């Protein structure tokens, strides 16, 4: 993509949407975060590497829309012990690029670093994220979120926050 052809206004809009997504996730605003999702949304965090086929191999998270909803309701149940006491998270998302424009959908790539404080430890996580955003009205909805953890090939501790 040559710099001259970058659709800066679309990029800024997508960024703004994803900044909100990041803040809602950081602040454990589960229902607000869930409301960003399209009805056919898929949330994917592969184990091992980005090349695995999630239909054949293990993923850390491979949620269709109804499983996203179960995940959110579990967080809200008051008995999701892995997230109790509340996990504190702040993430920085950066290096945004528009990777693809396809009709009313846009594929956005970015990097993320997370500082996570759980009951037992403080952790740093890092990932390459890809979002497929669908334009609806004057905003977006989340059709796909892929989180490619830098250390997906290693043994990982609990991941009980919205990554």
């Amino acid at each position, binding site marked *: 993509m040559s710099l001259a052809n970058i659709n800066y206004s679309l990029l800024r809009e997508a960024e703004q949407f994803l900044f909100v997504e990041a803040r809602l996730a950081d602040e454990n605003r589960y229902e607000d975060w869930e409301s960003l999702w399209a009805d056919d949304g898929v949330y994917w965090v592969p184990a091992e590497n980005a090349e695995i086929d999630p239909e054949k191999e*293990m993923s850390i*998270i491979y949620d269709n829309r109804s499983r996203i909803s179960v995940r959110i309701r*579990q967080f809200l149940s008051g008995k999701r012990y892995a997230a109790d006491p509340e996990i504190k998270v702040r993430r920085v998302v950066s290096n945004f690029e528009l990777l693809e424009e396809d009709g009313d959908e846009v594929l956005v790539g970015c990097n993320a670093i997370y500082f996570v404080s759980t009951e037992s430890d403080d952790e740093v996580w890092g990932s390459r994220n890809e979002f497929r955003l669908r334009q609806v009205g004057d905003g977006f909805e989340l059709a796909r979120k892929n989180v490619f953890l830098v250390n997906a*090939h290693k043994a990982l*501790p609990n991941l009980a926050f919205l990554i």
Partner: protein
Amino acid sequence: MNDLSSIENWDDHIFSDGVDGRLYNDQHVFEQELKKIWYTTWVYVGHESEIPNTNDFVMKSLGLEPIIMTRSKDGNVNLLINTCTHRGNKLCSKSKGNQGSFTCPYHSWTFKNDGKLMGQAYPDGFKNADKSALGLKRVPRIASYGGFIFGSFAEEGPTLEEYLGGATELIDRLLANSPSGEIEVTTGYLKHKVRGNWKLLVENETDGYHPGFVHASVFMVSNSRINELYGDKSSSLSRDYGNGHTEIDLRPEFRKRGEELSWFGTNKERLPDYVEQMKAAHGDEKAREIMIDGTPHAMIFPNLFIAEIQMFVIEPISVSETVQHVTAIQFKGSPDINRRLRQQTMGSVGPAGFLLADDSVMYERTHQGLQTKTGYRTYTGRGNHRERLDEDGYLVGDSTDDLPSRGIWKHYKSLMEA
């Protein structure tokens, strides 16, 4: 308080209804465990289906040792120590692959995948070297049952079947649920680390007391019927097979329901191909019985947990850190049920799993709680007034009883005293 650097009398630390809390977090005890358990008994290493072809290999572990599990040209499985015999460089850094030999990157010695030393760089310098004595070190004993490969660092000792004892029936029961009679490990692993001692995991795998509490959120948000299986009204059983092998036997509850595949939260109509395959393999009546009973929920000491639809391998990292490697069990040749086995496994286990994230936080909290220096001991006496023998002579209790823990510690004590 005496320290635990040399325990003379284990009766002072392991009781019939509890243990000295320090056994979970003392470094000397951990070192003794490595010697007397991990480097002595049979330990599960990997599954035949992970290396189906000649020259396949996969990186595994036994105790703290990284092990290359290979299939050599003769068809045999080899368990090789991943340390070059020249000066100790780690030989292989890949997690799996297919190759007939391994070349050390340091000075280029090359080993065949059965461990033999094939070549040394600049061979003129090795006039005095006995090549045949410089092969890779091997796990001295290796045996498999139903495709499950175990290794033992003890040159001598009971055979694998003697060690498994009644627990062979657990593996048989699992395999009977596969129409081909075989399972496969082909879906990769979730590697889930916990800051807790390995024994906390072993004991929890067949702890039928916690699910109603730790997993309450799952019953609240999905139509899981697991709570029926683990309440104090449940007719499920806990069983001690001896040698540390334990199970929660859910069959009494599934038999009450009398519905095929209810154990798996589904029914015959949704997995028609699988049901037909089962009938063809076993005949209608037997297939119906197997599909009502389902697969086992069993902990084979010290590191293989068969959890109905997935299997866990427990790897100790240190006294206070453990990794659980989890994979979906796949029935060879049955794609419709395999898809569901994968999906259910992914939802429930691993770092973000609906079930395992909560279990894992309990391991960590318990490990922290056990740091107390107040002469603490656990209590594992629940249900000791109602232990009884089943028709095969194994101790059974109610599913919420501490009977599996007591069985595990009894075996542990016998190993540590040896």
